């Protein structure tokens, strides 16, 4: 079952979800580690190159994901979910998507601030939009840093909420995204 139904998430939606989850936490760990690398570390050039490449690929995946989401039916909320739960989870999901784009765009603006391209592995070069505002690399850097801590915090809350549904409410919320 590739597509969503009224009752279930399809395989494609689930793949997008879990691939993004792993990538987001992976990028966070990689980014957290790489900013303190010593200049003479053999990873000093490679780690940021991979971080940027994977980030751009995630951007492409996320845009595709939103297109898929738009043209696919959404499983209806579980009847046991209160209006409050439904509304707050919708808001949380919107914030997560917003943060994702904020992270990917601010990340893109750092190395491209001086017209340099982002080389996505050896596959293709993503061109720069030039310097869009002054001190771009610093301002984008600050947004990227605090954005990273925010998105990870919200992701953890999102995961805790799923676990709460599974273990405390004993409903199908989490299982719908797994099975």
């Amino acid at each position: 079952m590739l597509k969503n139904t009224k009752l279930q998430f399809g395989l494609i939606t689930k793949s997008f979800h879990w691939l993004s989850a792993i990538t987001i936490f992976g990028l966070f760990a990689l980014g957290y580690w790489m900013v303190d690398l010593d200049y003479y570390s053999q990873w000093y050039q490679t780690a940021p190159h991979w971080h940027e490449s994977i980030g751009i690929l995630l951007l492409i995946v996320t845009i595709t994901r939103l297109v898929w989401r738009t043209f696919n039916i959404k499983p209806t909320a579980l009847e046991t979910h209160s209006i409050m739960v439904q509304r707050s989870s919708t808001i949380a999901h919107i914030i997560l998507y917003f943060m994702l784009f904020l992270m990917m765009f601010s990340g893109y603006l750092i190395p491209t601030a001086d017209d340099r391209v982002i080389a996505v592995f050896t596959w293709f070069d993503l061109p720069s939009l030039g310097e869009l505002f002054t001190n771009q690399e610093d301002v984008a850097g600050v947004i990227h840093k605090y954005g990273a801590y925010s998105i990870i915090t919200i992701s953890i809350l999102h995961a805790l909420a799923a676990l709460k549904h599974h273990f405390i409410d004993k409903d199908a919320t989490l299982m719908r995204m797994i099975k």
Partner: protein
Amino acid sequence: MKKTLFSVALIASSFLSTANAADYTVDTSGAHASINFKIQHIGFSWLTGRFNKFDGSFSYDENNIEASKIVINIDTTSIDSNHAKRDKHIRTDDFLDTNKFATAKFVSTKVEDKGNGALSITGDLTLHGVTKSLVLDANKVGEGKDPWGGYRIGFSATTKITMKDFGIDSNFGDISFDLQIEGIRK
């Protein structure tokens, strides 16, 4: 008002005491001045960069060179090594820590006449919150009336600093500075 009168008096008195000396503003608005640096890249090549924003003024008297004075203020956030990611890194607390130390300053304390337009300018450089004395080896390039009704004089100067001396732990070797300073007479 009192403050204004006081500063007018102060300026007047400084004019009186250095009546023969001419005061110059460093021509940063026309960008006929630059603060350039170079540092070795892992011993393989020279990496060059500059500070894009600074201002300064100096006094110079051909007949009394040793009475000359110069002050240069540098906006450390304006570092430019032609690479945004590297400049971002240099501005962090690994190097310049520009959030805390947004300005650097050079104030001359002694000027020696070495003859033939050569000067040895001793002064205090405040960088990264640390003040150290250093010597600029300067040479007068030229002076005279410009085509637009002003009077200009230009110097070229070099010096060298060690990062550790200014409390910067990252050690990538000495930094050589190359200053081009053109002044317009006030």
